[in-house]
């Protein structure tokens, strides 16, 4: 074993991750190599920096709030209970209120939408009936006119213009 290989194994060795077949040759190398033994000490020194700052403090009632928020969301597939990041955490406990508020908003939007559609339809009907009054007794057809191509439409328009011209000439 050379020093480069030994260097890569020191970490796993001290982490207890090497089996005996790997650890044995490393130990023999360390016995013979002062430089790599220094590497082991350096590794141990490094690990002493990893200390937890202070005990973790979990806010009181955290688990109860999370469980409540989770179950308020209904199906596990729905992300409904997820509380927006900028929402105060206290509001997480009051999550059941949210769907009701969202329901009211949806109803309001629906009513407003319906009103505007009705208004637009009324205007359209008034405009249509003003310009397209049928003579009394004229038959009302529910079926649509057959679709015209652009050429057919132009031809029809020209025929109408010719008829109008002929009428004017007769007058």
């Amino acid at each position: 074993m050379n020093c480069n290989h030994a260097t890569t194994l020191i970490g796993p060795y001290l982490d207890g991750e090497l089996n005996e077949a790997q650890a044995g040759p490393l130990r023999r190398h360390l016995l013979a190599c002062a430089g790599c033994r220094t590497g082991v000490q350096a590794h141990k020194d490094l690990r002493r920096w990893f200390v937890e700052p202070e005990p973790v403090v979990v806010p009181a009632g955290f688990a109860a709030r999370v469980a409540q928020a989770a179950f308020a969301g209904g199906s596990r597939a729905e992300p409904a209970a997820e509380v927006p990041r900028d929402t105060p955490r206290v509001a997480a406990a009051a999550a059941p209120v949210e769907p009701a508020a969202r329901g009211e908003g949806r109803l309001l939007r629906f009513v407003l939408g319906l009103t505007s559609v009705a208004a637009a339809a009324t205007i359209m009907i008034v405009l249509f009936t003003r310009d397209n009054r049928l003579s009394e007794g004229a038959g009302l057809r529910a079926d649509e006119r057959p679709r015209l191509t652009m050429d057919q439409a132009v031809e029809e328009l020209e025929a109408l213009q010719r008829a109008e011209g002929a009428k004017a000439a007769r007058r």
Partner: protein
Amino acid sequence: MEQEAASDAALVSETLAGNQASFQLLVERHESRVFALLRHYVKNAAELEDLAQETFLKAYRRLDGFEGQSSFYTWIYRIGVNTALDHLKKRGRSPIASTDDPEVLAEPTQVEGRIAAPHAALERAEVARVAQAALEQLPEIFRTVLVLREYEELAYQDIADMLGISIGTVESRLFRARARFKQAVLDLHPEYGADAEDD
């Protein structure tokens, strides 16, 4: 451990059956470790609580995918790490960007000089503060393996399972992460170098 695993599995089943109290118990059992893990990624207490809540809510939604083959804490850790990395990504710290992926960049893994062990007179809180500041300098993939190994003391196999990488990659990342950490401490605090101490 066996007993705890069985209890976790039972709580999961009860939660799936609609028992809110069982889920609350599951959260109570793991909340400290999840908070301890996540505080390596965010400093602010409110942000930490939000991340922890998000972690448990994600776990709840995916609970029927927990097959009990790994321990519950490994499973919840994986969700916690991913939640933290997503959070950092949203804040503009990408865990891995293709152009600066630290694993594909040719970088020196041997750092000149070494750091001494923290001096006995140094307050524990100060040691933790220095380490945390150095960790924050590291790319997320290195920070994560160091946190999982050095603070959470997870086995390589658990880290590999959690991150979806091979044991060889865990070894390689840890090797580079330790070198980077050492360099970061020396950059931030040259006075903690072993050579400086010898002088």
